[in-house]
């Protein structure tokens, strides 16, 4: 996966795997939706996951073969690869509440996060 553009954030990627969020954002070119999604994601991560997240960006226009593996249909799609199970959130991530629920970061709805 050498072609994957990687945006590294503050935290070192390999701390204890149990609490590091490995996130992959699938986009198709630099469309407004995709740019917005990345900005929203970064903001949310900084706010709720500071120091324990890692974001990969995959541009499907450059790596179309990667769409099949994660069953990508909609763009943008955010995939939470770790911790398991795999979760998918589609859209520009403009609704922070929904993103948090999708990432299992909102306590109450999924108690054992």
């Amino acid at each position, binding site marked *: 996966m050498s072609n994957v553009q990687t945006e590294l954030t503050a935290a070192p990627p390999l701390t204890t795997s149990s609490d590091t969020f490995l996130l992959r954002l699938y986009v198709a070119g630099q469309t407004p939706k995709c740019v*917005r999604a990345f900005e929203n994601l970064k903001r949310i991560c900084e706010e709720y996951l500071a120091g324990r997240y890692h974001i990969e960006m995959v541009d499907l226009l450059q790596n179309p073969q990667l769409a099949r593996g994660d069953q990508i249909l909609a763009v943008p799609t955010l995939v939470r690869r770790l911790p398991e199970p795999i979760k*998918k959130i589609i859209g520009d991530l403009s609704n922070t509440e929904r993103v948090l629920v999708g990432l299992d970061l909102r306590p109450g709805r999924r108690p054992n996060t």
Partner: protein
Amino acid sequence: MDEVTNGGLPQGRPTLVCGGAGSGKTLLAASFLLNGIVQYGEPGVLMTFEETGEELARDLASLGYDVGKLIDEGKLIVDYVRVERSEIEETGEYDLEGLFVRLEHAISSIGARRIMLDTIESLFAGLSNPGILRAELRRLFRWLKDKGLTAVLTGERGDGGLTRQGLEEYVSDAVILLDHRVQEQVSTRRLRIVKYRGSHHGTNEYPFLIDREGLSVLPVTSLGLSHPALKERVSTGVDQVDEMLSGRGYYRGSTVLLSGTAGTGKTSLAAHFVDAACRRGERCLYFLFEESPQQLVRNMRSIGIDLQQWVDRGLLHFRADRPSRFGLETHLAAMHRAVREFKPSVTVTDPVTNLLTVGTQSDVRSMLTRVIDHLKLESITGLFTSLTPGKTELEETDAGISSLMDTWIVLSIHEHNRMRRRWLSVLNSRCMAHSHSVREYMLTDQGLRVLDGEPETRGGRAVAGV
């Protein structure tokens, strides 16, 4: 199928195949895609939203397609798109560019010319924003057209429209509707072309059949009346009967109706004809709707006709089916296919009247018209036996089918001087100077023998066929 659509599906445009569950949508679409690969060398992409690649491969293997091999040869790509609503959270705007990217990638990697999408409507179940989906589907079909790809998509039959999500709005070029109907416990599959731009298509419903050979469509009336009229004659297998038909028997490629009450020897006369044809080295296809082949062979042996030898030599082939096993249309499709495969020069349908148990007289008549059209087109002589119920007027019972026949021979039994006597007469034979006399005949261990001279008649009334 190509005959029905007047040349096949529109090239470079999308076609929608819709129908209820189990109507054969996927099979029809897949056979288009796979035939394109096998017969026309056009690589194809199959995007499935419902079944996994393995499930689909297994289904299609039962129809005789080796999906795995085509994939290995780089002629086919099967992409299973899984959309599970419970696993997806939606927030904000999105589009289906991912789907486009996948399709594009699959298409360009094998140079595909044909695309199948089965069933794209599943997206509506997986994603919650129908507004986006509709806009994206519209974009998808435009995109497929711009690329000049021939696409087939399947859609589930909906309550209000042709499909649940109104897919037909987007695919305006060709819509094929499949239907799986059960009438009097008998199921029949039918196909109808609802919309087809720029093509002069048939608007009838066409029956079709799915079995191990794949899917075959049967044109209802597309044959027209253009079949050749042959002058050649073929023996009836009984010299005296030949004599009654201006001395030379039936016309090749014509249709013959043998009607009579039970036990008059219709099947015996048919067997003579088959026997004579096989002696000339011709192939015969015998449709049995009452007896089993073994029964028939045994019965005919008792009158000195050995049919088994022709079966052994591959000249005679029996197809025995209970009439109630399928609907008329399915019988028709099965007969059509059997004729196409066996390529006989003679067929016998014994008795054709048993088909009346599965359809109304007008249905049977229209089905027979189609069988006969096909036989005539192939110059196959078709012999049909018809069982007349004991008391009814003969002409009335057979009126429905007799007009389709070129030659009509009537067999009957009369009691005379405490003897049962069998009479035979040629009621009608087109374009032939046939005998108008009623002749007496006997069934002997040497076969059917026509006696010389006119039979004695009580009260001097010579009647034909009463």
